[in-house]
């Protein structure tokens, strides 16, 4: 009996395995296969087609001190900009393996080196002369402006003269052509300057990088490189370097006051655009007699289409390409203003703003598919609002920003919502 049962079960098992070996897919001409599927449709929605669309901009989320560059400029007619740098805690000792380093040490042959962003640097014919100058007044790295050395909520201290209270010229360099680096030799001043910067009983007012004649430079990564020489063995030297502990730049112009009808993204001041879109549960689609349900649908693609107003006036047009990212906004920006809490990054949102090609009327599309899919998956009757913030990433990656039309501005430049979606298929029963 057991043998019979065993044979039967073994056979049934083998048969079961055979039954799993299936190749069932048939190819069929488009649109003629059996079964049903809902159509995938595209809608481009203007703000006035929706029950609500609000947009606004805020700035101040970044500043020159958090920028990835210093804009140093003069004589161009657009802007005067000066870099401010401070070196502190400069290493004044050397560990020598197996050696005997004794006696006093002397700083020698110090030089300040800055990397030149060659793509954003423009020099006149014959080059530019740049100066490294002492600053004669204490300044606050995060709040210093053209007019104020300190400009915080509690303290506002103007410069003795607008533009940075410039003192003696410590070094001068001619940049005949655009090269990778700018070097200021401190020469005989090396030891006294570094000793001064390391003296914690004295105020370290730092240095200014200025254009002596004309030119526009984007400089990065200020570095102090110097040699440490033991007094007892002046033939021996040790080369060390240190990056600036504080760096910013000041400039003499601010963007024009905001007019209505303008959205801004990017720039050294971190302009951000906030949108609030009131989405209906269903949308009218061209060629479809009834509205199609967006709530419950699969959002195949969704994007906010921003329409460029063209380059902002100099010097505030973005001088280089930057990327816009979208973020979820978790509360009402009309209540909380710039302090409105911002949520997660919308992963597929990256959109490049290319100043060279973005003429007026050209569009930039910022993907918000996953955010809109979240909205579509929420139950009918839940919040109809979709709040999105758009910012440059990283912020303060460029000096200038870009401007786009708003919902209540010129109708030729209004932002739009473009959605490609597929409603749930209504399968036949049976």
């Amino acid at each position, binding site marked *: 009996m057991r043998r019979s*049962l065993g044979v039967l079960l073994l056979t049934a098992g083998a048969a079961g395995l055979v039954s799993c*070996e299936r190749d069932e*897919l048939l*190819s069929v001409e488009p649109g003629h296969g059996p*079964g049903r599927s809902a159509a995938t449709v595209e809608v481009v929605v203007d703000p006035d087609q929706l029950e609500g669309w609000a947009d606004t901009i805020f700035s101040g989320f970044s500043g020159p001190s958090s920028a990835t560059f210093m804009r140093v400029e003069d004589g161009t007619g657009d802007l005067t900009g000066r870099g401010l740098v401070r070196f502190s805690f400069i290493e004044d000792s050397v560990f020598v393996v197996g050696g005997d380093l004794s006696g006093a040490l002397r700083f020698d042959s110090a030089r300040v080196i800055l990397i030149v962003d060659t793509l954003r640097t423009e020099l006149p014919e014959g080059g530019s002369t740049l100066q490294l100058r002492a600053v004669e007044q204490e300044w606050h790295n995060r709040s210093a402006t053209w007019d104020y050395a300190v400009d915080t909520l509690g303290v506002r201290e103007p410069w003795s003269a607008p533009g940075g209270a410039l003192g003696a010229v410590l070094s001068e360099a001619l940049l005949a052509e655009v090269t990778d680096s700018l070097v200021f030799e401190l020469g005989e001043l090396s030891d006294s300057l570094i000793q001064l910067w390391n003296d914690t009983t004295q105020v370290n007012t730092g240095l200014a990088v200025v254009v002596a004649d004309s030119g526009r430079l984007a400089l990065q990564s200020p570095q102090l490189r110097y040699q440490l020489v033991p007094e007892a063995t002046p033939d021996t030297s040790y080369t060390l370097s240190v990056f600036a502990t504080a760096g910013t730049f000041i400039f003499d112009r601010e963007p024009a006051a905001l007019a209505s009808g303008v959205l801004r993204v990017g720039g050294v001041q971190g302009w951000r655009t906030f949108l609030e879109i009131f989405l209906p549960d269903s949308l009218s689609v061209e060629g479809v007699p009834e509205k199609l349900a967006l709530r419950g649908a699969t959002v*195949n693609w969704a994007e906010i289409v921003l329409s460029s107003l063209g380059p902002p006036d100099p010097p505030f047009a973005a001088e280089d390409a930057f990327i816009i990212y979208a973020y979820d906004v978790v509360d009402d920006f009309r209540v909380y203003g710039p302090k409105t809490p911002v949520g997660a990054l919308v992963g597929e949102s990256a959109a490049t703003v290319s100043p060279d090609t973005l003429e007026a009327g050209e569009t930039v599309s910022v993907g918000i598919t996953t955010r809109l899919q979240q909205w579509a998956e929420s139950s009918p009757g839940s919040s109809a609002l979709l709040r999105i913030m758009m910012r440059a990433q990283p912020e303060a990656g460029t000096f200038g920003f870009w401007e786009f039309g708003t919902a209540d501005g010129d109708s030729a430049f209004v932002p739009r919502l473009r959605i490609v979606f597929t409603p749930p298929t209504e399968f036949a029963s049976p």
Partner: protein
Amino acid sequence: MSRRTLLALLPALLVLASAQAFAQEDVLGSAGLGRLVRPLDAHARGMGSAAVALHGGNLSAVNPASLARVRLPGFWLTLMPESRSVKGDVLSGDIETADFPLGRLVIPFGERWVVGFGFGSFLDQDWSVEFMDTLRLSSEDIPYIETRSSDGGVSQLRFELAGVFSARWALGVSGLYYTGEVRRSVERDFPIPLITYRSAVALQYQGWGLALGAEYQPIREMILGAVASWGPGLEVRNDSTGQKLDLDLPLGLQLGGSWQLTPDLTLATALGWEGWSALDAELPEPGSSDVWRVGTGVELRVLSGPTSALFIRLGGLLERKPFKLGEGAPWERAFSLGVGANLREGRGRLDAAVEFGRRADREKHGVEESFRRLTFSMAVFTP
């Protein structure tokens, strides 16, 4: 094999019953309620599906009265792989499928009664199609691949009782419980960054039915059989919407006979009608029509030993399917060959059949398919 052992096989039967519901693919199965699959064994398949009355043990789940002729407790199982080549105006392809159309467990008790439990195929709705198309957007054209699938079907669980009422008459009754789930889905696969679209629904099927069967043996060499089946309804419930739909199950009548022309040669034939046209108004276009079926076959004993025997079989089947496609319901035409062996004085049986046939007509239905269907059955009986 004791009765207790046979009862222990019940869970295995239930597992197979659930497995067989997703084991068949057929684009013809996309019409109406799917593809009607009868719970036949390889013995009947080899003889043109003439399963109403058969000499030598009729193990197909067609005529419940046939169970009365089983005198030993037993269990049997059928596997049915099939190869199809589909050609149509808008679709084409080759399909390999496998199915468990029948499993049955019987236990005789008393002098004249047999009780049985079994599962069988009923309606299979397994199919998948794939096509490429283009989504035209305002900015660009997006190519995509769409796959539409239907997985599952409706099976029948059979609770059977048969008895021998006289030397000539045997009667049987089957309580049929129809159950199953069909999951329909569509997937539209776009290139990145567009998101893939998926939508699916599950349909639950449930219903009851009854089959009454009789066998009359006027002489030892002849068995005549008749079966009537009917069900009050098949409920279809959409799991997503909660929508319910009640479908009438059709009345079915089948007649057949088996005539042992000589001790080694048997002729069998069967006729069938099922009133599926009653559902015509309830089903989506193009609806349904009545099933008509005629099958016939011969069996020749080619080897005979003290405890064993070997048979070869030949048959043909002509059947109109219930669910219309294009201009009407398609026909199935099949030619069958079979072989079978009785082992150890009837304690074991092995049968196999191969059918070659065609379904539908491309001119009328837009699609046609040729198929090769294999059927393997194995039965074990124990005193």
